[in-house]
């Protein structure tokens, strides 16, 4: 047990560096693994429980394509598309949200606070009520609007070397404007358009169908891996533009790729279930608290988002006697946190993720 203290050499430093890296990697894998298991558990619970309880064996039978009396319809046609939509939209909101929050180093820079989701809603409601468009066209329009809002906020805020807080203030203004558009269009809407339009105001999974789950599944399959492959660039960007450029990151291109991938996920998520309030806003900070400063928070935040939506939707369906929209539950959870962050930022100026 004798170590030479007087003569430090690179060997010691090397083992310190390797041990530190392994420890960070293990912690990331552990937290992400536990989150993934919890998501699977929540998914299973939302398939088994409800007005009627089905055993895991019955649910498994339905999942593997067997005919189970009663369960085939309730689980296969009602609960499964709903749970899948909840899982996927949660992933979208969590992953998309944390990209904005870490890029701007501010928890308030969440897409549901700075108007990206509201922009998608406004375009969708306009498409349904005024233009009378169908499901697919509405989704495309929502996606385009979300991108346009994201890029215009970005340009407005960055034109003169702007900073995070400025971008957030501009975003909150944009969100308010889009909200006004939504309210105006809804107030003029014909009665038969209202159910479709309402989904774009409060996130709602009450009419989830396979048709609506498929596009968001495609988005997660295509954009999810893309975003995860950009995780390293996001970590470099967090050191500030100059340092990132100094270590050889193409800053503008990386930021644009990240924004487009994140906005794509958010828009498809919104198209499937509406702007489920505060999921993006909550998922990132929760994931970062659980994870600590180790590795990329993108995947963990997606899992936290999925967990939030699954649990909130389960509560919305069964906890209050009447079926509430899932956004009501997440809104009730998120609003106090928003107030807390605003109070803290006015006190110390810091709302870092």
């Amino acid at each position, binding site marked *: 047990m004798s170590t030479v203290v007087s003569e430090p050499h*690179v060997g010691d430093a090397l083992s310190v560096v390797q041990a530190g890296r392994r420890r960070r990697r293990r912690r990331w894998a552990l937290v992400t693994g536990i989150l993934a298991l919890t998501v699977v558990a929540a998914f299973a619970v939302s398939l088994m429980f409800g007005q009627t309880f089905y055993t895991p064996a019955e649910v498994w039978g339905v999942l593997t394509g067997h005919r189970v009396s009663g369960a085939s319809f309730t689980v296969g046609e009602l609960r499964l598309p709903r749970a899948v939509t909840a899982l996927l939209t949660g992933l979208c909101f969590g992953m998309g949200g944390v990209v904005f929050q870490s890029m701007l180093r501010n928890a308030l820079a969440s897409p549901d606070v700075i108007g990206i989701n509201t922009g998608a809603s406004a375009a969708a409601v306009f498409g349904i009520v005024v233009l009378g468009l169908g499901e697919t066209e509405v989704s495309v329009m929502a996606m385009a609007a979300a991108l346009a809002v994201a890029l215009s906020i970005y340009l407005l805020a960055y034109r003169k070397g702007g900073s995070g807080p400025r971008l957030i203030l501009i975003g909150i203004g944009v969100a308010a404007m889009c909200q006004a558009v939504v309210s105006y269009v809804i107030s003029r809407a014909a009665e038969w358009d209202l159910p479709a339009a309402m989904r774009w105001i409060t996130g709602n999974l009450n009419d989830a169908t396979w048709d609506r789950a498929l596009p968001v599944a495609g988005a997660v399959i295509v954009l999810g891996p893309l975003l995860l492959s950009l995780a390293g660039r996001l970590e470099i960007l967090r050191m500030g533009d100059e340092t990132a450029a100094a270590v050889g*990151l193409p800053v503008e291109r990386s930021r644009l790729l990240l924004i487009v991938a994140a906005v794509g996920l958010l828009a498809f998520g919104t198209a499937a279930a509406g702007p489920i309030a505060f999921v993006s806003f909550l998922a990132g900070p929760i994931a970062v608290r659980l994870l600590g400063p180790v590795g990329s928070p993108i995947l963990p935040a997606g899992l936290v988002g999925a967990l939030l939506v699954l649990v909130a939707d389960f509560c919305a369906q069964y906890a209050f006697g009447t079926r509430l929209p899932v956004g009501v539950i997440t809104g009730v959870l998120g609003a106090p946190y928003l107030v807390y962050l605003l109070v803290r930022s006015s006190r110390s100026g810091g709302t870092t993720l």
Partner: protein
Amino acid sequence: MTVDRSLHAQGVTLGYGDRTIVDSLDLQIPPGRITAIVGANACGKSTLLKAMARLLPPSAGEVLLDGKAIHRMPTKQVARVLGLLPQSPIAPDGIAVSDLVSRGRHPHQGALSRWTRADDEAVARALEATDVTHLADRPVDELSGGQRQRVWIAMALAQETDVLLLDEPTTFLDISHQVDVLDLLADLNRERGTTVAMVLHDLNLAARYADHLVAMAQGQIVAAGDPGEVLTEDTVRRVFGLDSRVVPDPLTGSPLVIPIGRHHTLIEPEQKDAAAAAEVEAGAQVG
């Protein structure tokens, strides 16, 4: 030991938007030596350093790295040769020292290649060189200003570049930490032949540590060369608009600037010229 890299600004015009800060300026960074750029606030020295590090594209002229236009080279390729420590880098919340230093390895990693033992070794060497190995697992935001600056330099060292540019690496540090950081850079220059170019505020430390001193005013180079020749009372007046006395540093022989303010001067300003004349006369008599 390392390849001598040439870094050279040719007639560069720099600015932000419509505002021109540096107008058609030439600057040669001598390879394998330490260059210090000094000048008054807002004279364009940081702007020039950013352009030399390809962070700010010039509106006219070119910055050449080994004869090639740096702004048109792939940024990752430049980052393997040239490192930059910006004035106020941002440490992500709670990040551990060794994690931050590891990010200096970014230019050496391809899109698909994994983290290798060579990367770990480079990080370990950087931690050792800056004497922060004992802090490796600590969060950067808990460190003192001096420690934090060493960690940032370690990140730049992990990049293992032949050229290292630093924007005011000693700001916010107390005098002993300033000397620590500059000693570290001098070691790096001596032992590895790294070309160092930095913007410095302290004239006397700049004159002591630099082989090549560049004095700037209003976006122009007023004087450049050996510190002993560049740092004169006349240069100080032209660069800072300040009267001073320049004497040899009793410790190193490099020029030592003593500013003359309106207060606390043993010799009254009007007597100053007379005193200087007397000195010259005395000198002549001795001669």
